[in-house]
């Protein structure tokens, strides 16, 4: 021990490594460049080659964004891109729904903020929301009247107030937050449609993209849980059916299923029954599709719950149903939350396929507006597609960062 040769017999927790940037701050710039860019001949060459490529790519991208692109097509169609053909007179409903969602999001973020009091983690939180804020600013920069900016500010203010409220909530309430989120989603849906509001078949643009993604994940959740449980069932008949369903759906591309759904769903309904709207048909296919993928996620979660938990539940005399729904499933679902966010991101991207079957969600409308008189045949696909791509990117990037943080906070993979 005195010689420092033997290791302590008791495992002591290893202190987490210092964050990199603390080191970097002390290093003078010259030394940093030598260490990080020119620490060997090969790295020197790589730096020069990559430097040239990066500078050229940046030059082309910036020239497109600030010089050559004709953004007026986006400017003139901003409302179309955001909500499609949603009746303009009903737009206040959209802002109301946004306000409701802002309350829920603010409450959640506020409740989570109690756990971090340091200013460094506050700075981190600001950094994390930077992409989303930049996205908002870019969208607002295309508006022609100050009204959307004012309303956005109002929604943000509501979110801020809820944040303050959320940070003062008792712990017992903040454990019920998932319920608040689901309730907020339903309330937002009601705000949009109740009392004569336009139904989902008249929504479009970014609004439809988000709604289909949120609706798809929420509505496919029960199906996914059932299929995931069924796949591990001790009943061979149930297991075979679930495996068959999951593997067939996962083996076929979504666009093929969308075609099948949009063409043949009507054929399976009783005669005299009206064929549902295209949006409904698309949503049904998306739910059936996402359910199969969720089932695999849920199965992974179920496998991560130690056998001892089931045995303990049996030992205290819980029935198989109670064991599953009170002991195993809650732990399993907690373990897969980050994976679920990942699933939501890919669903969000997959909603773009609805454009192929003729819905005017974000990608569909980005192409449809080029058939308007003013912009027809002028080759503006680059501009509208780039704008749509930017919206997708901001949403997916923010969500994937959130998933990474959740993964760290829940300590998944460290147990």
């Amino acid at each position, binding site marked *: 021990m005195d010689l420092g040769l033997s290791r302590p017999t008791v495992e002591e927790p290893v202190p987490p490594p210092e964050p990199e940037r603390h080191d970097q701050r002390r290093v003078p710039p010259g030394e940093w460049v030598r260490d*990080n*860019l020119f*620490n060997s001949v090969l*790295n020197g060459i*790589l*730096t020069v080659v*990559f*430097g040239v*490529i*990066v500078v050229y790519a940046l030059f082309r991208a910036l020239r497109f964004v600030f010089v050559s692109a004709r953004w007026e097509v986006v400017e003139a169609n901003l409302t179309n891109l955001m909500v499609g053909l949603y009746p303009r007179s009903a737009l206040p409903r959209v802002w109301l729904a946004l306000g409701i969602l802002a309350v829920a999001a603010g409450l959640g973020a506020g409740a989570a903020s109690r756990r971090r009091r340091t200013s460094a983690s506050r700075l981190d939180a600001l950094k994390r929301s930077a992409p989303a804020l930049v996205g908002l600013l870019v969208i607002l920069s295309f508006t022609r009247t100050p009204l959307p900016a004012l309303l956005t500010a109002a929604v943000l203010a509501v979110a801020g107030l809820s944040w303050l409220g959320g940070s003062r909530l008792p712990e017992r309430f903040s454990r019920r937050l998932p319920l608040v989120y689901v309730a907020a989603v339903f309330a937002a849906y009601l705000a949009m449609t109740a009392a004569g509001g336009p139904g989902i078949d008249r929504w479009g643009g970014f609004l439809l993209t988000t709604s289909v993604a949120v609706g798809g994940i929420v509505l496919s959740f029960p199906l996914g849980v059932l299929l995931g449980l069924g796949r591990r069932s*001790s*009943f*061979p*008949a*149930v297991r075979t*059916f679930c495996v068959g369903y999951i593997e*067939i759906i*996962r*083996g*076929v*591309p*979504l*666009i*093929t299923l969308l*075609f*099948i759904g949009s*063409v*043949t769903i*009507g*054929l*399976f*309904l*009783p*005669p005299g029954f009206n064929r549902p709207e295209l949006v409904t048909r698309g949503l049904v296919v998306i739910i059936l599709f996402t359910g199969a993928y969720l089932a695999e996620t849920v199965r992974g979660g179920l496998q991560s719950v130690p056998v001892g938990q089931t045995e303990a539940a049996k030992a205290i005399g819980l029935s198989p149903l109670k064991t599953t729904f009170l002991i195993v499933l809650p732990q399993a679902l907690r373990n897969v939350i980050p994976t679920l966010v990942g699933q939501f*991101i890919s669903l969000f*991207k*997959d909603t*773009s*396929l609805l*454009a*192929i079957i003729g819905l005017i969600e974000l*990608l569909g409308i980005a*192409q449809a507006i080029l058939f308007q008189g003013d912009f027809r045949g002028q*080759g503006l*696909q*680059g501009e509208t*597609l*780039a704008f*749509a*791509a930017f919206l*997708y*990117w901001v949403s*997916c*990037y923010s969500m*994937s960062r959130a998933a990474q943080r959740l993964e760290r906070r829940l300590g998944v993979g460290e147990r």
Partner: protein
Amino acid sequence: MAVAEAPSYRDQTRPPLWRDVRVLRVGGQIAFLAVLALVVLYLYGNLTRNAPGQLSFAFLDQPARVDIADTDFSPSQPIRDAILVGFINTIRVSTVGIALALLIGIVVGVARLSTNWLVRKTAAVYVETLRNIPILLWILFLYLAVILKLPRITEAIEAFDVIVLSNRGLNVPWVVGGANATGFLLVLATALIVALLVGVVRTRRFDATGQPHHRWLWGAGTFLVIATVGYFALRSPFALTIPERDGRGVQGGIRLGAEYSALLIALVVYTASHIAEIVRGSIQAVPKGQTEAANAIALSSFQRLRFVVLPQAFRIAVPPLANQFLNLTKNSSLATAIGYFELTRLTQQAIANGSPAPPAYLVLMAAYLSLSLTISVIANIVNRGLALEGR
């Protein structure tokens, strides 16, 4: 004593029928199957009433009435052949795409772990940009906003004098076989076998004497010598043709159509961004103790990667990689949006021309399932070969 008492003990506490686990198991499954059968029968009944006479596969022999670009397919051939052409086109874009995506993905994934700040950050930006935008948007953007915006064939761009770019697609250099092409392929095969044998001999020698084996050096040298001698002995059996613009067309090389190029490039760069994350994650997932142990027994950094880190990382990477290959194959169906004639597109075309939808879609699903199954089976075989033994 316990044995003697057991029957009476069981008799006394036998549960009532509705709580007997064995009865419940059988009854539950029968009930499940009954409900399932009823649902299927109901849906099938509706289908036969809604679409009478649309449930036969006879349409496969009808003429396809469709023109497929870049093939000698004639519209009078049966639908069966058209779907086969689509199947082959799907495989054509998937296999090339998988190979290229794996290559780029590995390079980018390793670049994300580089010690060079610029390389690391560029790779990170590549991954985060590519994978957070839907693949369909990439396909449309590349097709509508890049390839179709290229100059017409008469003003085509000739990049480095070897690639001709125009709005009709890409023309890239290609090898064409001459008179002795088959002979030369045989020579190459022989060279490969001899090279492998040399490698085995060198390894045996190393095992016996402990002298450095340099088996890669020896093997590659043998291969090159035989191949070079064969090439000159058979008087240049293969030649490289380089595309050249020639008025309204392009001579030489091989032409990749506009749709095929857009689809292939989009699939490759998008899937590569996912593969890069898998590669990075797998390398990082190898326990640190392994690297430290390798350093402790004084392996060089190359030896550490080659014999310690990469084999373990590869084992972790195989299942998610197989998943990405599957995704690429399935995503190739999005070419429907730009009009590349793959499986989904040609089936849709057949239905638009009046084929009954339900059986046509069954054929389509079966075709994709066979592709998925093939990839899964290959992945499982590789996985089993790599699995740890004896633990």
